[in-house]
């Protein structure tokens, strides 16, 4: 119908495209910058004005993963020839890879922090979402005495700013030996996300007609079976949306992780900035660590994107 456009319309359309591109660029600029830095040679990382064109390198990522120490003198030709490709990258940067007595490569602090983050965020998300779903189902389907008060109570656990409870929590954790443990962080993040998960899931489950379960009950299924066979698949969208929110919260959490952990169970958020303090920072390595840290949330969200779009459009967070 609108095959023929007036010049005004064409102009407006072009303007819209241009402004979208500008907005997109402004939004993505920090990510572009950090990603570019992660692939730069060290000497180009902090130039003023910034270097835009360069030959990308993977050496920052190699350096990120292994423990290194400064070399006193330039590496010899034999050293370079004997080393595998990744070790050569470190040597060329004027550092050597630290090995144990038996010759095994020592990893840097980053891989274990990253793994800790993955464990803590994944386990606490699974726990918060599953407990939240069951709790929400109970509130949605059964008469609970003082239902509104309970729901308010559950929400109220989120009203205290984390900073306020951080110190008492730290003291309690120290007393029971949960300091710097995975379990400690998992409990903390699960508790933190649970109220959110209950509220969000209640909205989604309320939308599922309870006649579906009634029909299943009459057809010879128990309530449990009806829950797993009918309610869960119907709630998949809501579960996905809730899981993404919980995962992001747990993955990005900084304050508690900083106070509660220092080594064994330390997650990536407090670790990454801690590197800056030690000596002359290698910005390319820090950028590489940051870029890797961005990936899991991006991948997780991307995998669930179909559910998310539908999940955001109904239920508790309907706009």
């Amino acid at each position, binding site marked *: 119908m609108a095959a023929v456009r007036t010049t005004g319309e064409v102009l407006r359309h072009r303007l819209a495209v241009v402004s979208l591109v500008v907005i997109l660029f402004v939004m993505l600029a920090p990510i572009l910058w950090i990603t570019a830095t992660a692939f730069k040679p060290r000497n180009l990382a902090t130039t003023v004005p910034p270097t835009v064109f360069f030959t990308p390198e993977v050496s920052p990522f190699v350096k990120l993963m292994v423990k290194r120490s400064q070399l006193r003198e330039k590496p010899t030709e034999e050293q370079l020839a004997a080393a595998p490709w990744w070790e050569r990258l470190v040597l060329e940067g004027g550092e050597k890879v630290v090995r144990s007595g038996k010759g095994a490569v020592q990893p840097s602090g980053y891989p274990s922090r990253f793994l800790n983050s993955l464990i803590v965020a994944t386990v606490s998300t699974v726990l918060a979402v599953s407990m939240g779903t069951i709790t929400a189902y109970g509130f949605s389907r059964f008469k609970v005495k003082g239902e509104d008060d309970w729901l308010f109570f559950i929400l109220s656990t989120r009203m205290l700013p984390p900073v306020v409870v951080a110190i008492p929590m730290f003291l309690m954790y120290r007393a029971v030996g949960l300091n710097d443990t995975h379990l400690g962080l998992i409990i903390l993040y699960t508790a933190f996300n649970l109220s959110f998960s209950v509220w969000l899931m209640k909205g989604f489950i309320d939308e599922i007609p309870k*006649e*579906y379960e*009634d*029909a299943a*009950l009459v057809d*010879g*299924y*128990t309530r449990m079976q009806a829950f797993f066979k009918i309610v869960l698949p*119907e709630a998949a969208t809501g579960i996905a949306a809730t899981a993404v929110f919980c995962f992001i919260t747990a993955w990005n959490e900084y304050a508690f992780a900083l106070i509660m952990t220092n080594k064994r169970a330390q997650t990536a958020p407090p670790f990454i900035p801690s590197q800056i303090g030690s000596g002359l920072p290698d910005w390319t390595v820090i950028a590489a660590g940051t870029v890797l840290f961005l990936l899991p949330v991006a991948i997780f969200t991307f995998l669930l994107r179909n559910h998310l779009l539908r999940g955001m459009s109904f239920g508790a967070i309907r706009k």
Partner: protein
Amino acid sequence: MAEIELRGISKSFGTVPALRDINLTIADGQFFVLLGETGAGKTTTLRLIAGLDRPTEGRILIDGQDVTDWGAADRDTALVLQQYSLYPRYTVRQNLEFPLKSPMRRVPPDQIAERIARVSKTLRIGHLLDRKTDRLSGGEMQRVSIGRAIVRTPKVFLMDEPLSALDAKLRESLRAELKDLQMTLGETFLFVTHDQVEAMSMGDRIGVLNKGTLVQVGTPQEIYSNPVNTFVARAVGSPAMNLLPGRIEGGRAQLGPGLALDHAGGAEGRALIFGIRPEDVELATGAPLPATVTDVENHGVEKIVTLMAGPHRLRATVPVTVRVAAQDQVRIGWQPARVTLFDEATGRSLRRA
């Protein structure tokens, strides 16, 4: 095959009573229709029998066995709901399979296939089997819902207004199909509706529910010709029974000054309501009551004539051959035997009292 018995069933939601002291027996193989307005407690009754809710008081028996404390899964009833009977995520076939695949039944796969084939033939839904149920029309959906109930050969079929969402024509054809189906299966059906035409045309017996109380149970004929009170009189029949306030004086029905009709006498002097079905109102030149025609509706085989007799508005159905037009002055009468008398204060029929 089963007989259902409700003994003194009451159900309250919090302080709100939904059902009050219901006593009812539905014989094996009967097509029983529960008729009631919205909020009368029809769905509540079905849910109690299906075992989805527990009665506040009273016992429920199926085949003489007290099932009041049994869960829904153990009662072996099939329920067709007002809506949301089908799972949108499943295909028609998966929906039909669902009751057969329940862990407490475990029907072998070859039998499942056979039963589904038979049901889809009966209900003519074979071509829909691999479609998702949210892509079906209303009529197809209700057919599949009914199919889901009958694949299982349960003891009792409970149907909650399964036809209410359909258009008139489809409704009529499905009504006949359902009735046929019940005859073929020979099972006990409890069918709930707010549509009196549906109730009258389908039911072997009808129970009329008013605000949680079962006011009358009987065959369609009994309910039609001998309603226990003015509520039932108004609820069945289209157009509804004419209800005219008046009293009996000197052996005649007095409907107002100068408005007297023949009557056999009895119940002298108290305030009454005279109930007369539209087809029993006679238009004749020698009849005792003068009336003005205000409206004539032509329905093909008959005409529905609206009349004003003094302050009373009433309706009469007459054959189309009767020549009558709006604003005509006519005279009307009745056979006293066709009149049902109700007490004005209580609304109860005097024949019953």
